[in-house]
Every structure is written in C-alpha cells, then in structure tokens.
C-alpha cells in the first residue's frame, strides 16, 4: 500500500504535491506491478443523479468498480438498472455527479468500453447479416468516413466464432433465434476490444445453452482482467455468476463483493419495494408512530 503510493508519486514527477485523497480511500486490493503506475478504477461513479422529465429516477449513486470482476446490477423493475448503464455510457444527461472511466471522462475513453444494449432495442428485420452487425463493433475504432478493412472483418469473424456463431455469419439477422441474436450482440461488444463492458440484460429471453455460453464468455473476459457490468434479473444465479453486486432501487442500496453484499437484509431493502423506503423515512422522522403494514 505505502510502496504503491510512493511509487505513484515518483512515477509522475510533474505532480507538485500528492493528489488529495478521497475522504474514504478504497484500499487497493490488487498490487500493481512496479512497472505500471497504479491505474484508476475502470468505473467510478460519484454522486450521480439522473432525472427524466424532472422526475429523478436514480440518485445517490456513488461507487468504484474494481478491475477484473463480473459485477451484477440487481434490482426490481424500474429500479434504474438500465439507466445506470446509460448514464455511465453518456447516453442520458446527468442531473448531478460525474462518471469516470479509467479516471477520465467518458468521452475520452469511449474505446475502452463496450456495450451490449437490450435485444429488444433494435429492429431485427433490418437489412443486414450477423457479420455486419458484429462489424459495427469496429466502427468506434475506425472513425468517421473510414470503411472497415480486412483486419476488421477478420476480427468480427473471430468474435462471431467466440460466441459459437461462425456458421451464421451471413445469415440475415431476422432469421436468427432470440438467443442467437443475443450472441451476435455479445460478439459485437467483443469486437469493440474494450476493457470495460456494460451489458443490459444479456440473459433475457435466451435458452439455457446460450446462457451457459454467455457465462463462459464472461468468465473468459474476467480472466483477461476485463471488468463487466451486467444488468441481471435472475436472483437465483447471482451468487454463481457475479463477484460483485450493485443493489439498486432508484438509489444505491448496497455495493460490494457478492458474499458480503448479496444478503437477505440488503435484498429485503432492495426488493421490499417502495413501501420499505417510505417505512425507513417514516421511522426516522417519527419513531413510535405506527409504520408500514403488519
């Protein structure tokens, strides 16, 4: 810990003084190798509030996501899980707070993050094939006006093969099953060659085999020190799939390693519904007064 800090100071001689530490410094769990300066967390969200039409849908979000972990974003419908991802990706305006990716604002780090949008968000009758959709993952690196090159096509094919869809490269996307479409989206994200991934319900509407395949890919990503945030619905599989969880119900309920955070009390807080929030507030304001339902 101390060594790491000294190293940090030495590696950047232009820094006049050590940067002020945040009030609650998060201990570094992984030791950075002496050759590389300690890196900023893949995702840092500070005091985030998002509002749609003046109605806040997400507030008090404040966490740092550790590197190389599979992180589940868990919460009931309408808890703002997708909104959190969209806020991190800069797709919705923030009412307050900021999001940093590897210590920098999102606009400067677009190529280090990949995105799997929900499958229903696009029209699958669009005139294109699976390979072409995966190729779209390369567009961010290509820049404007440049056409995909041979290497990009090879990369896209490789990514399709990784999700077990090599035989379907030239298939029109409407002729793919739901699970296959989800795999294509996953392959597109892989083609982005990012180090931080956001996946919005990659398991929704897929068959058991596809779910297994996707989990295998997530674990492979983790092996390569990638960080993956996944919006997830199925509470049964949370412990099995995720190292970390973010429990969300419009505000942040709890964040941390799954075994410490995914507890009945926290779940009760998350899923107890809005009634619970009301209860807590009521209790705080007027103790002794009858609160909640019996």
């Amino acid at each position, binding site marked *: 810990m101390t060594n790491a800090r000294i190293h940090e100071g030495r590696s950047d001689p232009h820094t006049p003084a050590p940067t002020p530490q945040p009030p609650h410094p998060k201990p570094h769990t992984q030791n950075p190798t002496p050759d590389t300066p300690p890196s900023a967390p893949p995702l840092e969200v500070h005091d985030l509030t998002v509002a749609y039409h003046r109605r806040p849908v997400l507030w008090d979000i404040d966490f740092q996501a550790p590197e190389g972990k599979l992180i589940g974003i868990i919460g009931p419908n309408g808890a703002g899980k997708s909104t959190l991802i969209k806020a991190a990706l800069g797709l919705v305006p923030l009412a307050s707070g900021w999001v940093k990716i590897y210590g920098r604002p999102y606009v400067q780090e677009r190529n280090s993050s990949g995105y799997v949008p929900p499958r229903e968000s696009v*029209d699958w009758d*669009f005139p294109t094939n699976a390979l072409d959709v995966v190729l779209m993952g390369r567009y961010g690196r290509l820049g404007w006006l440049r056409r995909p090159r041979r290497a990009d096509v090879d990369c896209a094919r490789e990514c399709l093969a990784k999700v077990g869809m090599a035989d379907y490269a030239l298939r029109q996307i409407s002729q793919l099953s739901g699970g296959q479409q989800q795999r294509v989206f996953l392959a597109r994200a892989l083609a982005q060659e990012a180090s931080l991934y956001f996946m919005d319900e990659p398991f929704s509407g897929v068959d058991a085999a596809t779910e297994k395949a996707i989990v295998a890919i997530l674990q492979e990503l983790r092996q390569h020190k990638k960080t993956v945030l996944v919006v997830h619905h199925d509470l049964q599989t949370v412990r099995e799939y995720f190292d970390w969880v973010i429990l969300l119900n419009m505000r942040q309920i709890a964040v941390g390693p799954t075994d410490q955070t995914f507890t009945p009390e926290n779940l009760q807080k998350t899923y107890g519904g809005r009634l619970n929030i009301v209860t807590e507030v009521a209790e705080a304001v007027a103790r002794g007064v009858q609160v909640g339902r019996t």
Partner: protein
Amino acid sequence: MPHWMMERNVQWVLAGCVLLGISSGVLGSFALLRRRSLMGDALAHAALPGVCAAFLLTGTRSLGFFLVGATVAGLLGAFCIQAVTRHSRIKEDTALGLVLSVFFGFGIVLMTIIQHSPKANQAGLDKFIFGQAASLIEADVRAMAVCAALICVAAGLLFKEFKLLCFDSGFARGIGYSTMWLDGLLLLLIVLAVVVGLQAVGVVLMAAMLITPAAAARLWTDRLDRMVWLAGAFGAAAGALGTVLSAVELRMPTGPLIVLSATAVFVVSLFLAPRRGLVARALRLIQLRARVAREHALRHLYELAEASGRWEERVPLQELAAVWGEPVAVVRRQLTRLEQDGLTWHSGEHWGLSASGLQSAYEVVRNHRLWEMFLMHEGQLGADHVDRDADLIEHLLPPVIVRELERLLRVHGREPELPPSVHPLAGTGG
C-alpha cells in the same frame, strides 16, 4: 429513336426526373429504415412556404434560392415537430400531421399573395403543389444534378454511419457518434431530395417518391448496400417511365405518372420478390403444407401398423381418417398422391405402406421422435443452435447428441423399428 425523344426539352425533363428518382430512392432507403418516411412528407409540405417566401423575398425564380427557402422552412418544420413532441403530451404522428397541415396552409396563403402580385405569371409557383416536369429547363436540371450528386456522395461517404444510426442509434451514441448531428444531416439531405423533386412531382406527391422505391427495394434484398442501389435504380426507372408515358400520352401530368410508375414497381415487387414476395411466400406455404400432409399420412400408417404389430396388413381408410382427424376425402387424396410416388398401395378402401413407403415412413417417424426427445431434453443436451426449420435432425445436431437422443428413444420405448420381414433393406436405416 421516337420523335419525342429528339426534342431537347424532353431530354432535359427525362434527365431531371431520373435524377429526382435516384436521389429520393437513395435517401428514402435511410429515411424508411430510420422510420422517418412520414417526416419526408411533412418536410415536403413544409417546403412550400419556404419556396414561396424565397420568391417573395428575392423576386426571382431560382432553384438556388428555393433550396435555401425550403431548407430553412423544412428545418423549422422538423424543429416544430420535435418541440411539440418534447414539450407536450402530443405524440409524434399527431405532431407530424399538425406541422404538415399548418405549413402547407401557410404555403397556400403565401402562394395566393404571389398570384395576386404582378409577378404571378413569372413565378409559376402553383406548379409546385402537384409538380410540372414539363416546366423543367436546363438550369433547373443542372441544379438538380448538383443536389443529387451531393446526396449520393453523402450517402456513400457516410454509409457506415447512417447504417448504424438506422439500426441501433443507442449503440451509435455509445461509440461516440453524435446521433443528433447525424439525424440532422439526414433531415437536411431529405430536404435536399424534396427540393430536387419539388418542381417535377410537387409537394403533395413527393413523399411517395421517398417511400415507394425504398419500400420496393427492401423486398428484394436483405443487404442495405444493395437496397440503396436498388432503390436508386427503381426511382430512376420510375422517373424515366413516368416521363416517357407522359410524353407519349400527351396532356398527362408527369409527376403523378412518375409516382404511379413507382407504385407499379412496388406492386410488382410485392408479388414477385424472391423470399419476401407474396407469390414466393404462398409457394412456400403450399410446399410446407404438402410436406406436412405427406409426413402425417406416412406417420399414421406406420403408427397404426406399429400398434397392431401386423406390418403387412392394410388399414381401412375410415380408421386412418379417424386417427388422423381429417375427412375421409382428404385422407384418400393424400394416400393417392403417395401411391403415385410408389409409397402406398391399396385394395378397395384398405391402404398400406409399400416397401419403399415403409422405409420413408420409418425415417419420418424416427426424425419426428428424435425431435420429440430433443425438445424434452433440450436443457441437458446443451445443444447450442437449433434450426427448427431443418428437415432432418441429423443435419443439424452433432452426431454425439443424435446418439444420445437415440439412447433416450430406447429408454422411453419410443424407438421406431423397421420390420425385417417386409423390407429387404432393413437395418441400413439406422
């Protein structure tokens, strides 16, 4: 060359209408996929007051000024639509209708003012409502060519960006595309295409030129690049056809003829396009029905024999119809068809499977039951991909899984047999 083709005027009109077809076809493809087709209609109507205002302000009839006027009015219209949807509970379709009619009405008012002014004859702006291709002169066509070239170059250069915008705008923004900018550019190009077509087709029918060739092209292909090329070609063909028809059949307005030609292309595509066309779909349905009926007949004959264990015996037609649940006449027709293929034979009203029929029936039943097992045990088998349309399960699943399915068939006592007594080829089927 027919005499009307020799006229210089007709050549310019022809060139103009082809250019209009190409530009609206190409851009219409993106507008269609971005679900902005009706926006094209609103923009076309909104262009009218812009054109009139441009004439009132400059006092000259020049396509350049018209373009500026139409662009400003079109963007104002688009802005109004967005403002209305954003700041009120009114949905986009209502907002479109609102803006469309208000702008058009305002355009008519301006036009009336112009017609009461001394410059009325010079303006000829009333032609902009329904279009008059015959009034196209060389200068107009040159300006149209510039616009069409701009549209095609922009569509070519930004093909990848527009494709992603149309397919998945959320992802596009995620990788740093400014979708607002791209949408704005698309809108601007639509206005450009509208202006190109305004004089020939008119504001009322312009939307048809944006929608119809693109919709027709979509039926022929599943690739965006081909769709854009085709839409351009269809638009050009419609433009040319409309002009020629109008030149041959005198006193017929060109604009409506162009739109009707485009519609004819669409209707032909709707019926004849491969795969997506109605004829192809009907044929596929008929084929599917025939195959299902044939397999049903074979399966029921097989299963009746299997149940009784008397493979050589023929079954009464009535009994088969009862098992199958179809009228006797339908069953008889199906069996007769199978007999023509040498798969069944009968004496009187009793039917049975021939040797080759038994082989076919065995295969059908085996495939059917393997599917059954597969669907029952899908979860455990961990097969990644299943193409439910595939004919034979063996073509689809790895041999390991087929063997596992066969084992499951035996476990469940559902394994079909090929009785050796009847068929010399018995045993080769497995």
